[in-house]
């Protein structure tokens, strides 16, 4: 689905990503782990098209197309979705208006007809029930007055509504209590199928108890320094990141 080759990216002239290579296939869940400042969130943001980051080298092929050449809204219409680490409040725009506008843009892009009012309402109710959300929230302004946990849940709700091909989850677990974490995980698991893929960025292994990844990658200083199966996450939980950093140093000095 997506193939990242030698991706380099800067913010304010400082290089954060220093050559990322990664391939994610349909049906897979990949977890990107790593210490603070390693570039995890940058990777998710660069893939979503955040213009604060400048790509200096490398290429990303998504569904056979050059992802980096698309504007962020085009990427989204092509099926890329980023669940934000810090979702934004938009006063005056209700969740209903926001999501129906987004959904119709995506449908238009695919050559489909606009969703009917009833179709939208039914879809909304169905997706809200997966997350145990009150459907009345649809008439509230996007994220305004939502708690941290509600905002994260709302990101997953948006993902379920827009049904992307590639979901990038940027520290969706941070700031969630265990109950909220379970609900969010159920949402992601309900989303998963053999035609879509999930790339989740997390600092802690905790989330991976509920969303079991196929692959785990450790990002450190802008590079992937170790990849493995789901057991790698457990090993990181137990031993921390230092042993990999040491391993990396040995490789570098060897």
């Amino acid at each position: 689905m997506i193939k990242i080759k030698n991706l380099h990216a800067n913010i304010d002239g400082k290089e954060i990503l220093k050559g990322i290579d990664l391939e994610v296939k349909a049906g897979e869940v990949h977890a990107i782990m790593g210490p603070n400042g390693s570039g995890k969130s940058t990777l998710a943001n660069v893939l979503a098209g955040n213009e604060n980051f400048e790509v200096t080298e490398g290429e990303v092929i998504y569904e056979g197309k050059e992802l980096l050449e698309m504007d962020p809204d085009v990427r989204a219409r092509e099926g890329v979705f980023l669940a934000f680490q810090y979702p934004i409040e938009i006063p005056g725009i209700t969740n209903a208006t926001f999501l129906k506008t987004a959904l119709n843009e995506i449908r238009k892009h695919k050559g489909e007809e606009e969703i009917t009012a009833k179709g939208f309402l039914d879809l909304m109710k169905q997706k809200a029930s997966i997350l145990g959300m009150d459907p009345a929230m649809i008439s509230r302004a996007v994220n305004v007055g939502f708690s941290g946990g509600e905002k994260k849940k709302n990101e997953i709700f948006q993902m379920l509504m827009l049904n992307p091909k590639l979901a990038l989850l940027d520290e969706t677990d941070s700031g969630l209590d265990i109950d909220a974490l379970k609900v969010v995980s159920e949402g992601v698991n309900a989303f998963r199928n053999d035609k879509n893929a999930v790339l989740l960025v997390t600092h802690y292994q905790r989330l991976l108890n509920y969303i079991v990844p196929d692959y785990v990658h450790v990002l450190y200083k802008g590079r992937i320094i170790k990849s493995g199966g789901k057991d790698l996450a457990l090993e990181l939980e137990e031993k921390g990141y230092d042993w990999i950093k040491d391993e990396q140093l040995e490789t570098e000095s060897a």
Partner: protein
Amino acid sequence: MNNKTRPNEWYVSNFEKFESKLNGQSESFVHTIRKDAINRLNEMEFPTTRDEEWKYTNVAPLLKNDFLPTYSFENPKINSEDLRKYIFENFECDILVFVNGLFNDELSKVGKLPSGAVVDSLNNVIKNNPDLIKDKFNTLTKVQNAFNALNNAYGVDGAVIFIPDGIILERPIQLVYLGGNGTDKVLSLPRNLIIAGKNAQAKILANYAGYGDVPYFTNTVTEIFADESAIIDYYKTQHENTNSYHIDRTDINQKGKSVFSHTAFSFGGLLVRSDINSELEGEFMECNYYGLNLARENQHVDTHTFVDHAKPNCQSNELYKTILDDKARGVFSGKIMVRQDAQKTNAYQSNKAVLLSKTATIDSKPQLEIYADDVKCSHGATVGSLDEEAYMYIRSRGIPDDLAKSMLIRAFANDVVDNVKIEEVKEQLNHLIFEHLQRVEITDISKY
């Protein structure tokens, strides 16, 4: 400086002719005020950019025109179907309609009011019950500049709202002011008076709109009295033609424990200037000013506010937002005076502007003058472009650039729009925002 005669000349020299057409109206107490005003107008000069209060707003282009006063031109024939284009609909309200400052009885519609309440034209009140207003009329707006004098001299009619003590008007009142006749450069000079007694409550929507596309000049004066514990929500919308002029002076006097809110929306007009002044003459009262000024192309929109805290324990709160596109220019000047007696004053003022183009400009001048020592006062001004993080967030959901910007405009305007307590009007205001900025409209679909 100018080889043309003083702009005053035209108005001064036409006054006799105007006076002769007034008929019975020249008998009333208002006529003394008129005569006094024309003398003042003769003595005064119109403001120039050398006057501190008019530093950023040049009225010279306005003064080049000799606008025709009332009774020297034909008013357009407007039926109730035409009127729908200009008014806010879908809610129950009493309506008074003024076309170029003249009351239009046929288009106005006032239902049964509580005993003693009056919603009528100034002329009718002067004719039928002058004592109702005599001790208040023209006591707040003392002629401060030539525009006020012009209104006093030539103003013929306007709205009077009188709410006796303890009366709550259930229905909002919509005051519709149409300017222009589509052929001549005309003057529209509404003169309004709102008197709310003790514990009285009302919602008033003053709606200024333009007829036809020939330039005209609306120069309006409104006096508002809110007695003890009165609660008055006053909304003003201005969507004059974008080649026309709009000058508004509104003076408010508040007594103890009253709550007054002024929420203004400025869309149209080539040159728009609003002065809003409040005297807080009592304790424990609240004065709120909110405003949204929009301008594009070569529009110029200027709001000047003055809140005068004379007594202790009062709160004033101002929030003004401006959105400018193209070469539009915005001005905001907000003065807060806290007099020596006015301890425990809370006064806040915030002025935020978004510039949608590189050629738009705003001048912002917050001024605090504080003579009391136990007060909380703050002011702040920001200027910027639309919120970039939110822009990315919206686009990351597949929403294209133009729609994303419209959503951000709606979001920016929201905390002003939200102060309108007539739900049906809010969505119509949002519509006007997009119409006047010529942007794709974002309508709310959450109410199935």
